[in-house]
């Protein structure tokens, strides 16, 4: 083992500066091929026509040869009807708006539950902070699917909540929360909560406590100090956490599919159905491009925040 390592080291050392190029080039090329190029292909296919073939979409570019005239021409057909369909059909517009609404409500719930948690942990005894944070992150390591599944048993009619309410005499029959927008809010808040607490905690923990002490000495009430000092200083954490929840939540598929009702429209579900049920790849691609357009501004803000944090960490 040692011999192999030393051979590797001397081999790579001889490469010297060239090795640096490889370190950048390998992940760079990988991401170009498997992250960037696929978007261009999706963009291309969103302009093609759905046909019954393998694969089920028409080619955009055709090389036509006219034997009689002896000429040949390159023909590029862009079919924009897919986008007209998105704009003209209420189903798609409603799905986009509803996705934004559900993602916004989820983000708000995560903030309302996550902020006090992050604040309490950041204020706790330093020795206890690690384990307390660990307890927040731990559920994130268990399967997302399993955690959504756990809520089915709790929210369904004759489920845990329904039985509890009946036992307490509040209701006199099964209550079904499952298959509604509320079930989706609960499930999504549950799954995304750790993503909110993490960035909030890391900004709150860095805050200098002497600022609050100074404010208190000058006669500021705790609540006023919170509004005027803590909240503005934790803004980067609020922005980062909200984006980490909001952006993936807009395109969420599994939670609305398992917990939502048939009328819980979300764009991720529409895309899935266009692709798997209708086998209409061009429309699915157009749905994806439109979703990306909606998300491009939040994603760029996220990248900006993330970049600033990486700079600050140095």
């Amino acid at each position, binding site marked *: 083992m040692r011999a192999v390592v030393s051979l590797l080291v001397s081999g790579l050392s001889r490469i010297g500066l060239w090795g640096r190029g490889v370190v950048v080039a390998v992940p760079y090329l990988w991401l170009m091929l498997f992250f960037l190029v696929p978007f261009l292909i999706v963009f291309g296919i969103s302009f093609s026509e759905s046909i019954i073939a393998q694969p089920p979409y028409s080619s955009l570019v055709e090389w036509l040869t006219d034997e009689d005239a002896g000429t040949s021409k390159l023909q590029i057909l862009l079919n924009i009807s897919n986008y007209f369909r998105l704009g003209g059909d209420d189903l798609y517009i409603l799905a986009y708006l509803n996705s934004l609404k559900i993602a916004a409500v989820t983000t708000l719930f995560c903030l309302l539950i996550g902020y006090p948690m992050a604040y309490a942990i950041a204020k706790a005894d330093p020795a206890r902070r690690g384990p307390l944070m660990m307890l927040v992150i731990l559920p994130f390591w268990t399967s997302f699917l399993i955690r959504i599944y756990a809520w089915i*048993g709790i929210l369904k009619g004759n489920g845990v909540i329904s039985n509890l309410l009946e036992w307490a005499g509040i209701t006199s029959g099964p209550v079904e929360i499952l298959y509604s927008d509320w079930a989706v809010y609960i499930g999504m808040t549950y799954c995304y909560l750790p993503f909110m607490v993490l960035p909030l905690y890391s900004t709150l923990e860095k805050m200098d406590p002497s600022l609050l002490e100074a404010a208190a000495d000058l006669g500021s009430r705790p609540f006023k100090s919170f509004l005027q000092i803590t909240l503005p200083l934790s803004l980067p954490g609020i922005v980062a956490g909200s984006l980490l929840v909001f952006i993936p939540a807009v395109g969420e598929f*599994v939670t609305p599919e398992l917990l939502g009702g048939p009328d819980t429209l979300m764009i991720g579900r529409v895309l899935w159905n266009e692709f798997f049920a209708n086998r209409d790849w061009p429309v699915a691609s157009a749905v994806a491009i439109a979703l990306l357009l909606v998300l491009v501004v939040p994603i760029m803000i996220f990248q900006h925040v993330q970049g600033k944090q990486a700079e600050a960490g140095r």
Partner: protein
Amino acid sequence: MKRFGFLSWALLFGYAFLYVPIALLIVFSFNESRLVTVWAGFSTKWYGELIHNDTLLDAALLSFQVAAVSATLAVLLGTCAGLALTRFGRFRGRTLFGGMITAPLVMPEVITGLSLLLLFVAMEQWVGWPDGRGVTTITIAHTTFTMSYVAVVIQSRLAGMDGSLEEAAMDLGARPAKVFFVITLPLIAPALVAGWLLAFTLSLDDVVVASFVSGPGSTTLPMVIFSSVKFGISPQINALATLMVLVVATGIFVASIVMARQERQRKRDEQMAIQNG
């Protein structure tokens, strides 16, 4: 004694919200009755049935293989990416590179899945590879979205680390590759372990991307769970979930103990070095 104020209640509520569903899931996996939420006595029969469910076991084996290979690839690629972003200063195309590293963290899964599938189909048409879809395409897809998480973990470890050790080694004439293997690598080892575990669990958890890029005969465990959950809840899934939670909890526990011990050892070594120097 401190009063039990709003913050403590908020914390308690948060933890209850996070853990009660998982606890209920585990409790009901030992339920005699087929109706998952109505208690009818203690039983371990669902665990017994689990062992004879071949579809589930095959899918689990496949998922573990995919997760292990893609996590390893993701650590290799993600470490290079993290290193490039923190230690190489400015290079051409750095902005695009940084963008491609962070975007997959928030990209909706349906978009990642669809775009990768369309890439694989197009590649098959143009260059004849990959031949159909299956384990290879799932592994590539998982590597692509998990390497970003690894890169972020490595990046934050490297950013929080003092670069002076590396600089000192360079000043003493060590070549960059040697500096990396002898100094940087041992220092970021905990981050590598954490990154690998994260990539492994993310791969083991993914149902959306895998559904897009899998082919006939390559059904992963989450895909099996997803399709059976869609038909309603079953005690067998509870039993499976309990086992998965148990495995994860054990893994995290062992990893954190090992890492804490290493960290202590490192601190002790540092102290010794200071005293002796």
